[in-house]
């Protein structure tokens, strides 16, 4: 089996995000970028499946600006086999990404697509679901456990009420959650080997996908700064404020 893992280059999770002065988006100039943490978990899971003999090849795909190839390289250093890079802007919408990924799936014919449940920049949480719909494949989202046996994948999903166990047919799209695993560090030999692994470039237009945005971004704003708290003198005052000011009781 071949596993396809889409990886996205996003702002590093440690960076304090700043809004551009013209409110057109988030400041990305001179900001540390890294692989989306959920995608890292997906890469790790793919590696574990391969190491357990459940897959022969792991292919990474990244869609975005040229530096996305560095993100692919990061995953190759973890141990993935090769990469596919599709040039696009930073803000390709989930539907366009899903269509591009479908085109890659048609070409590569993987048995499993492992995605992060969402990217930590847009927090859309749509791409995996859209891809499964476009492919007509089953989907298992928010996975905190994955077990593949023949034509079936048993997925443990993290839902509000607890854990949901589902069985879905292969091939499928699985989106992974935070607690699925802890990604490994790239070892020194693997960092050096990654340099020699191939990254093929594909063109969005050649794949027949229109990546033009369908949404209009009105503006991006900083969340309102948190106000300092106050001390109340009595329980009566507290209840009064909860009733009339906060309107929560």
């Amino acid at each position: 089996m071949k596993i396809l893992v889409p990886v996205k280059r996003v702002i590093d999770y440690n960076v304090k995000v700043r809004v551009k002065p013209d409110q057109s988006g988030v400041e990305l100039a001179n900001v540390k970028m890294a692989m989306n943490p959920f995608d890292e978990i997906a890469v790790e899971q793919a590696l574990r499946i391969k190491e357990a003999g459940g897959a022969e090849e792991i292919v990474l795909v990244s869609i975005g600006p040229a530096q996305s190839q560095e993100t692919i390289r990061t995953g190759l250093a973890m141990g993935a086999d090769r990469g596919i890079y599709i040039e696009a802007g930073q803000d390709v919408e989930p539907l366009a990404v899903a269509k591009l990924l479908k085109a890659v799936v048609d070409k590569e014919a993987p048995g499993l697509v492992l995605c992060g449940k969402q990217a930590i920049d847009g927090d859309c949480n749509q791409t995996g679901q859209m891809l499964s719909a476009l492919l007509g494949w089953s989907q298992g989202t928010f996975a905190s456990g994955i077990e593949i046996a023949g034509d079936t994948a048993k997925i443990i999903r993290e839902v509000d009420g607890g854990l949901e166990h589902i069985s879905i047919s292969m091939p499928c799209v699985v989106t992974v959650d935070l607690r699925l695993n802890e990604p490994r560090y790239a070892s020194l030999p693997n960092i050096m080997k990654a340099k020699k692994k191939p990254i093929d470039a594909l063109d969005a237009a050649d794949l027949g996908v229109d990546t033009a945005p369908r949404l209009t971004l009105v503006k991006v704003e900083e969340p309102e700064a948190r106000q300092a708290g106050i001390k109340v003198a009595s329980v009566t005052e507290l209840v009064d404020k909860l009733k009339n000011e906060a309107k929560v009781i």
Partner: protein
Amino acid sequence: MDFSLSEEQQAILDMAVDFGAEAIAPHALKWDEEEQMPREMLQAAAELGLAAIYVPEEDGGSGLTRLDATLVFEGLAMACPTISSFLSIHNMVAWMVSSFGSETLKDRHLAQLCSMQKIASYCLTEPGSGSDAAALQTKANRTNEGYNLNGTKSFISGAGFSDLYVVMARTGDESPGGISALMVENGIDGLSFGAQEKKMGWRAQPTAQVILDNCAIDADSLMGAEGEGFRYAMMGLDGGRLNIAAAALGGAQFAYEKALAYAKDRQAFGRSIDRFQSLQFKLADMHTSLDVARSYLRQAAWKLDNQTPDATRACAMAKRYVTDSCFQVANEALQIHGGYGYLTDYGIEKIVRDLRVHQILEGTNEIMRVIISRSILAERDQ
């Protein structure tokens, strides 16, 4: 001229920093206090290729350059200079075995050195010979089976803890050419250790004397050829000096970052202390020192990798300058923290204690000046 790190070098540095932050930093103060470090952590580092950084790939190592190695030791030292330096010593032994060891010696130890199933120490210094290392007195007398070792090695990092000891001992005359490198395994008859030394810093790595009393080893324990030991030791030193400097740099960088953050949080006279120019100037000087040290260290490493004629001098200059300036930076970081900097819990006094020895070992900074001046005078007079 391009001063930027390559994509791979950045990945190497990031990995070392991240591994250090997760596996070392949260425990660094505890290990310092308890004067021990866990083998599991070292073996986890080895799994990432950190135990055989410049052992070639065909020997099971990572096959990296000395410049790459400085990135590793700088990154690890941001978590703990003591652990970083300990790994540097092990790396030197792994490199020696791979470079000079016979096939038998390699078969015996190299794979386990790369995985740190066997941890290695390096024994050159003796109670009576430090800077004057070639005056060492430990004897290795030839026997029918191999060698019989007698003597005492002092200040040995990992003594009692390590599985293997590379011992520099005299197999011939009193000249440097009479010294050979021999591999001694822990547990053999005649090998014992002195009491653990109580130290100012580097407390997480055990340090003691290694005592050899009629220690019999077989002929295959000889590394390379007889009489070559001192030459191997000297070859290891240039790179070792870079590593010791890199570890000082990582420690000082950590202390500087702590001070930078503290200067924002700490209030005095109604404002944060970073509003005072005296403090701003301190931070400016610290940052300058770190950047200059880093640039020169990497240049010296580049020279060693490219075997330039002045590589040994450059390594000595880097070791002298980087360890001196990084100690100053750490000390200033403590000063910025005021009374809190003197408290163990803030983690700064540990860095000051740890970095002090970087000015002493791997050749004192005075010996570095001897090497540098000897080289420039010889160049002038040639």
